[in-house]
């Protein structure tokens, strides 16, 4: 069975849970930005939770099915249609052979995950089907999908229509969105006042927001503790000797606009990082549109682990609901 791409949408790519073990060579984990939504979509149709799905940002694709399959769409609210008839989000439905899946305009959130029973079965690269366009790895020839592509799937019928994730388990960012941050890494480079200001100010998602990283604007510039720059670091006080970057780490080049590195992160570089968004909140970043208001919330390690447990608990409840 194949999915015929009639219209690819804006930047629709094949993603799973990513490839582990190559970050030391500059090849990032990749995979779904909102892993919670990807797992839920796969559970709804009866796939392994890490099966490859389509991740579409802001605009949905138009896809013709060559065989009947169970489908589910989770994540952002982007009205779903099958041959023009509306379908429920976070709920499985059936697309019959010859029918076309399409979408209306985005209502909230940023990214949808389209799971098809059997999963997308394009070839794996370094253990994953996730698309990493910078390194031309995974997906279809290492790129986003295009009109005319025919994506192979596992071809199973799936578990059929009507399986649904209850409203409280459809995880999404609040308003304003709150992203919890564990200070660390090069936090000591900031003055106390700058550190406090970072958490007090309201930031907005900048237009430069993609799978590599999300940039934020609108808060006060950050001041650095005076020092003579170490050899090899570069002249700007925000520079360090190039080091590794953590997923979720927050760099602030020149002290002006924070950038949170995401799934397709560069693996290292010469900017100081003030800490990292906790693992539990990485999914939420994937659902932020440009201009969304965001507050960074300071947490400690115990709170970060509690949040991680809570997110895992929600996934466990979806599993229970769906049996």
């Amino acid at each position, binding site marked *: 069975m194949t999915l015929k791409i009639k219209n690819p949408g804006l930047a629709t790519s094949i993603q799973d849970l990513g490839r*582990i*073990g190559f*970050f*030391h*060579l*500059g*090849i990032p984990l990749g995979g779904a930005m909102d892993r919670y939504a990807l797992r839920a979509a796969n559970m709804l149709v009866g796939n392994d939770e890490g099966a490859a799905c389509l991740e579409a940002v802001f605009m949905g694709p138009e896809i013709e099915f060559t065989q009947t399959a169970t489908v589910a769409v989770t994540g952002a609210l982007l009205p779903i249609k099958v041959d023009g008839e509306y379908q429920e989000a976070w709920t499985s439905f059936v697309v019959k052979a010859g029918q076309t899946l399409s979408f209306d305009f985005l209502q909230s959130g940023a990214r949808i995950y389209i799971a098809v029973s059997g999963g997308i079965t394009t070839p794996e*690269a370094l253990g994953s089907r996730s698309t*990493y366009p*910078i*390194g*031309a*790895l995974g997906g279809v020839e*290492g790129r986003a999908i295009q009109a005319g592509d025919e994506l192979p799937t596992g071809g199973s019928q799936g578990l059929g229509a009507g399986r649904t994730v209850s409203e409280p388990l459809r995880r999404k960012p609040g308003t304003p969105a709150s992203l919890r941050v*564990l200070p*660390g*890494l090069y*936090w000591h480079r900031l003055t106390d006042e700058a550190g406090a200001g970072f958490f007090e100010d309201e930031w907005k998602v900048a237009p430069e927001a993609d799978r590599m990283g999300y940039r934020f604007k609108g808060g006060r510039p950050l001041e650095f503790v005076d020092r003579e720059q*170490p*050899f*090899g*670091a*570069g*002249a700007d006080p925000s*520079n*360090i*000797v*190039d*080091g*590794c970057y*953590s*997923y*979720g*780490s927050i760099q602030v080049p020149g002290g002006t606009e924070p950038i949170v590195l995401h799934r397709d992160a*560069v*693996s*290292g*570089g*010469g900017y100081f*990082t003030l*800490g*990292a*968004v*906790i*693992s539990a909140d990485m999914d939420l970043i994937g659902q932020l549109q440009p201009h969304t208001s965001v507050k960074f919330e300071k947490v400690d*390690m115990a709170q*970060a*682990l509690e949040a*991680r447990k809570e997110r*895992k608990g929600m996934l466990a409840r979806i599993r229970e609901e769906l049996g």
Partner: protein
Amino acid sequence: MKTRYTFGGDEHVYVEMDDEMSLDAFFKSLSMSNAVRDAKIEGVTEICPANASFQVRFDPDVIAPDDIMAKVKELEHKAESAEKRLTTRIIEIPVFYKDPWTHETLMRFRERHQDPNGTDLDYAAKINGYASVDDFIEAHHSQPWFVSMVGFVAGLPFLYQLVERDKQLQVPKYLSPRTDTPKLTVGYGGCFSCIYSVRGAGGYQMFGVTPMPIYDPEQKVAHLKDFMVFFKPGDIVKWKPIDRAEYDAIVAAVEDGTYVPRIAKVEFDLDEFNADMRGTNAKMLEALNDA
């Protein structure tokens, strides 16, 4: 040198050997990250060595953050007593300096540069006190370089010059990063040279381009058949200046599968190097010439 330990969120331990770059800091970071790898700690998913630091990614559902931190700290003494000696390889990388492609690109992004009236090489020569661009180019390729980190994007090497600190070239990055850099550009930022493995954004000054592929996800290039990434930390590089005719010849050889990089096996001993830099380099270059 004072080691600093910190967390990067709830999934990373970050260890900085020193806040300034040196080969001592690099060797300590490499041997300590190797010790962490050899310890096979359950829950560790990635180990990334960098220039003067390294990072360990872990799964906090498998090992508690404080436990992994304690285990990493315990391994510091191993790194301190480790031999600062590597069996490695020296590789000749052909470079077409002042090539037309980086020239076109640097002209396109002139408003982001410190000196809009010259080229990146003009600027680098001037601020490093060289009378001419050719003198500067010679300083760039006459002595070997050490690959101290692989990363940023797929397979990109950072290289550190094997000369006395006061002879090391230093050039700031662009004022604002470019959105484009030709594939296989030989770049420069801070005290590091690099090779852009893929086309894309970048902030390093651009000096030239190499015809030798260093990353091939399809693994069709002969010298990348075994693995798609060419470099690893600890590799030693000698730049070899080439002209347009040689550049074209190598590109053609790569395409028909006959290009073989020039590589020799060498021992690098940090104490020996610190005692006699030029002598150690001369020995390594001799090994390369015999290859």
